[in-house]
């Protein structure tokens, strides 16, 4: 039954499929409405086969890309394939349905040839607001999932006849900035529609049988590439741990622990010794943990491995129900997506120091460094929310210093230019500079973090922080020194200045100045 297919045709089809995924991201970036998508590019696109196995992805955000296949598989667990129709676009964001956190909303379009389901086009976009207690939907002291915003189970928002206005209105009634969100939803829909069109062209050109045979080959190639990459790592058992500063509620470090077993061409990542789930929003789903493992394997062993379901076959991941990486459904998770996922990578890197230190970077500023400013802009009378992430120093490597002010590992979202901030928000950026001396010393020094100063120009604003590495600094490798920890402080108009917690929610008044100093990277080797 299998169609024989030559390697050249497979490579031609692999390029064509990757082009489809890349096209989706281009479409959404160009047509979306919120700055988070169009300026910062907080979105990702992928194609999966009919059973949810990842086939191809765009060049987007690793934290998103690692979960796309799981999202489709879990989606199919909820919605039997028989219910899917050509022209459908389903939206969902439930963390327990192959997800990560509520703001990352996935649009899934089943793609048919004739009446047979062939593939899924998935477009994930970080919505700047998904409801919940705070503007921007970051609630640093959330104690359950429902405080974090609107929970969308698989919901058919578009059919071949167009938008289902009633469902759309339910969504728009539960998020802030309905107009902007509607634009983003349309952009996600348009992206998946573009993918559908391209796939139809490919079905016509190659024939469905050839295309499916090529997809199977792509999976098999990726599996072979991953096995080769693992084989290059020395066999053995490697243990590593890293700590969250706290969970935003309880002032206690939380351990992420991994035991990695490399045996010939297989790898087992056992996280069962990690701490119990957190009270606050630092829990991460097992899908997020898997995304981190996949990222780390690519970064350490094989950057060119095709991101396909086949690459996951030689890798086994174990998490313990009830733990920080496999929390109960009721747990809040908003920060776990980009903070705890980085702890997973850091734990893996620390474990692998015993095996392949020359392939690793020392600890970087592995946090989103997220600050959210909200308030009414006195110039327009309108409510505005600035969602800003802050890169810090890159960790040093065996052959070079770390680079200053960079987004490490699981994220790669850009900053918002000071001029754009001042135009759109009642804030003045008084300084953006490198935080000199914040990189850890070493044979090669860690990169410096940055300092940004935000002066508040509105009578009143609120600020939410979701920042790690304030307590536990970025580590050095091979006896290099750690980088300086992240530090956020507020200078009030009365001249007082106080440091604030990494995960908090505070009131700001006109003339106050928020000083953000991001962490430096760790050094590599004895200074």
């Amino acid at each position: 039954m299998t169609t024989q297919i030559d390697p050249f045709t497979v490579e031609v089809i692999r390029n064509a499929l990757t082009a489809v995924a890349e096209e989706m991201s281009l479409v959404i970036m160009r047509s979306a409405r919120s700055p988070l998508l169009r300026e910062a590019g907080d979105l990702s696109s992928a194609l999966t086969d009919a059973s949810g196995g990842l086939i191809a992805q765009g060049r987007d955000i690793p934290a998103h890309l690692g979960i796309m296949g799981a999202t489709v598989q879990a989606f199919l667990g909820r919605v039997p394939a028989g219910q899917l129709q050509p022209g459908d676009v389903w939206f969902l964001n439930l963390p327990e349905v192959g997800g990560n956190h509520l703001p990352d909303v996935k649009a899934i379009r089943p793609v048919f040839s004739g009446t047979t389901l062939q593939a899924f086009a998935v477009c994930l976009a970080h919505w700047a607001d998904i409801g919940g207690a705070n503007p921007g939907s970051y609630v640093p002291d959330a104690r359950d999932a429902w405080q974090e915003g609107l929970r969308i189970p698989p919901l058919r928002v578009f059919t071949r006849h167009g938008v289902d206005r009633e469902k759309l209105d339910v969504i728009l009634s539960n998020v802030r900035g309905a107009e902007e969100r509607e634009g983003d939803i349309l952009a996600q829909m348009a992206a998946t529609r573009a993918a559908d069109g391209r796939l139809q062209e490919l079905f016509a050109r190659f024939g469905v049988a050839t295309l499916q045979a090529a997809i199977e080959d792509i999976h098999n190639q990726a599996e072979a590439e991953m096995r080769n990459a693992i084989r290059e790592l020395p066999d053995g058992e490697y243990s590593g741990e890293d700590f969250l500063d706290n969970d935003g509620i309880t002032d206690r470090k939380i351990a992420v622990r991994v035991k990695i077993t490399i045996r010939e061409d297989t790898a087992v990542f056992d996280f069962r010794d990690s701490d119990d789930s957190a009270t606050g929003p630092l829990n991460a789903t097992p899908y997020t943990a898997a995304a981190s493992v996949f990222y780390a394997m690519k970064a350490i062993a094989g950057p060119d491995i095709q991101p396909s379901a086949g690459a996951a076959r030689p890798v086994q991941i174990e998490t313990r129900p009830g733990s920080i990486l496999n929390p109960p459904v009721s747990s809040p998770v908003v920060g776990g997506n980009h903070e705890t996922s980085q702890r997973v990578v850091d734990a893996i890197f620390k474990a692998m120091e015993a095996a392949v230190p020359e392939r690793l970077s020392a600890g970087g500023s592995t946090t989103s460094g997220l600050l959210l400013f909200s308030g009414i802009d006195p110039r327009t009378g309108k409510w505005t929310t600035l969602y800003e992430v802050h890169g810090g120093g890159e960790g040093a490597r065996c052959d070079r210093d770390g680079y200053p002010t960079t987004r490490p590992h699981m994220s790669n979202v850009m900053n918002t230019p000071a001029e754009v901030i001042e135009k759109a928000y009642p804030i003045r950026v008084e300084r953006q500079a490198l935080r000199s001396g914040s990189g850890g010393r070493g044979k090669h020094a860690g990169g410096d973090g940055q300092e940004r100063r935000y002066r508040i120009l509105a009578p009143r604003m609120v600020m939410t922080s979701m920042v790690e590495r304030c307590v536990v600094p970025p580590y050095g490798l091979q006896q290099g020194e750690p980088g300086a920890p992240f530090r956020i402080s507020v200078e009030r108009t009365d001249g007082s200045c106080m440091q604030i917690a990494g995960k908090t929610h505070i009131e700001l008044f006109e003339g106050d100045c928020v000083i953000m100093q991001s962490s430096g990277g760790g050094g590599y080797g004895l200074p």
Partner: protein
Amino acid sequence: MKSTWSVGIDIGGTFTDIVAVDSATGETRMGKVLSRPDDPVAGITSACHSLGLELENVGDIMHGTTMATNAIVENRLQPTALVITEGFADTLEIGRQNRRELYRLSVTPRVAALVPPDRRVEARERIDAEGVTVTPLTDEEIKRLTAEVEKLGVESLAISLLHSYVNGEHESRLADSLRDSVPYIALSHELNPEPREYERTNSTAMNAALMPLVARYLARMKTVMESSTGLHLFHSAGGMASVEAIQTRPLALALSGPAAGVTAGAEVAGDIALDNVITFDMGGTTTDVSIIADGEVPISSNQRMAGYPVRQMMVAVETIGAGGGSIARRDGKAIRVGPDSAGASPGPACYGQGGTQPTVADANAILGYIDPDRDLGGSVRLDIERAERAFKPLADAFGKTIPETALGVRRVANANMARALRRVTIEHGADARTCTLLAFGGAGPMHAVSLAREFGIETVVVPRFSSAFSALGCITAEMRYAEQRPVHMPSASWDADGLGEIVDRMRYRLAEPLLGAKVGEGDLRTEVVGLVRYSGQSDTVSVMLRQPYQAETLNAEFRKLHDRLYGFSTDEPWELDTVRVTVKAPPAYELSSLGQAGTSQRLDKLTTRECWFEGHGKLETPFYDRSKLPLGVQIDGPMIIQDDWSTIVVEPGTEASVDGSGQIFIRVR
């Protein structure tokens, strides 16, 4: 007596191309000589000699150059100082804080800052987003900054102050005080009057760093040429500019060469009435592509070069890191082509200059497409045995014959390019199936037909002068100047009269340098384009603006285009973000006025050789000399058409024809 000859010259990295026209007789000549990177002026002289012309008595020189491009790409920019608003000295280092490689941690996340820390000076001043002065720039501060900059002892200076795009007064005053001590100064509000401090500052610094290089080059050109010779430079936005204009804005040369090729493509498209064209210029290590819709040269002001953002209006050319030198390799069970390239040195194995790895060019040699008895640009001759030796290990690994493997590698190379092409067409909202592929440059015509097949394109055109196409673009381009200004006019508070005044002012300024002996006010054409978006969107849609600039007309046009580009449009408010005005004077030479091509009556083969084709195996294939093809002829593939510098591969099942002016059309389906 002054000669009646005009020449278009494009100086590339390897070759200098020349097209010359005699205005008295219409006689047209084309040539190609090796470039002289050490002495570009000598390269121009020898190009003229190759056509029997002396530089001193050429009437007009229209000149495209990769000088600025190479200085940027090879990091040969001149040391530059930067004055920037207090607190922002590290902006070039911080950039947008993202990394270029997601998984490859060994690579540094970004390129090094254009201006190092010890040449960055902070100015105590502040203007806000509305243009209101928050902290004035005092005379004492100007004095202090002047002294600081003088101490650095540099020739070039960039001044980039926050929000100068709404109020450039501080930048101008500071520049006035520094003009005596620093010869080359670039101001950010003149160069790139748009928000985003990193991108604007970087563009300004790059411009400042190019200024001394370009000034010295132009000064040397002038000493060689007679004072009466007209020297014009081809700028990146697809037109000619005066030497004076280029001296203050050398960044406008950043894409000079590719822009000339695309502009020639637009001329050809207009001449033979093609609506949508993809230009395809494949070289040894890179391939340039762009989309020409309705005969308009595509413009973008948001591109990157060598990892740096360049905010300038430039022809939207996408450079793909794949070409004839791309290396094929086995990766487990899979085949990959590129991104590694054999480059110019050692080059493909078949050039016999030390290359041993299998490349795309070697595949073409193995498949029989290149006549081994022919010179390739003078000294190089083809060595097919070496190519086959390079391919043997790959063929063995896949259990295929060498020609089968070569065909496979060509398919994969074309698929790589098709993927990049897809990205370019999407970004321009073009439907590839309705496009014509216009192939030129060294290797473009060799791959165009297969690429068209891969991409679903029905027609390939290989234009006249295809192997010196950028030089042709130089000679047939319009004189044009363009400028864009942010206006931020929301649909809710539309002001047609205000917009009219802005456009008139811009038009007046742009027209001034064009008017002169040969060009009167009546010869000028003005084009006004609005960049429009829904409030809150980032990317804009380009909409043609026509007097009397009614909001209703614009509204309808914008929604139509938005729907075409993105598949939806809404009733929401929109805004005119930016207005772009272009003023054009007619070209000295129309394409159609250039001398006649091929006058042969008979179709004669040069030779017949065995060539391999996908799905057909080995076929007896006729070779033709392009210059001897009769006009109006139609021939079924397979065939190879060659001229002195390039080869057109016409596959079986396709049909080539030559139109009345010598353009070659190939119907793919």
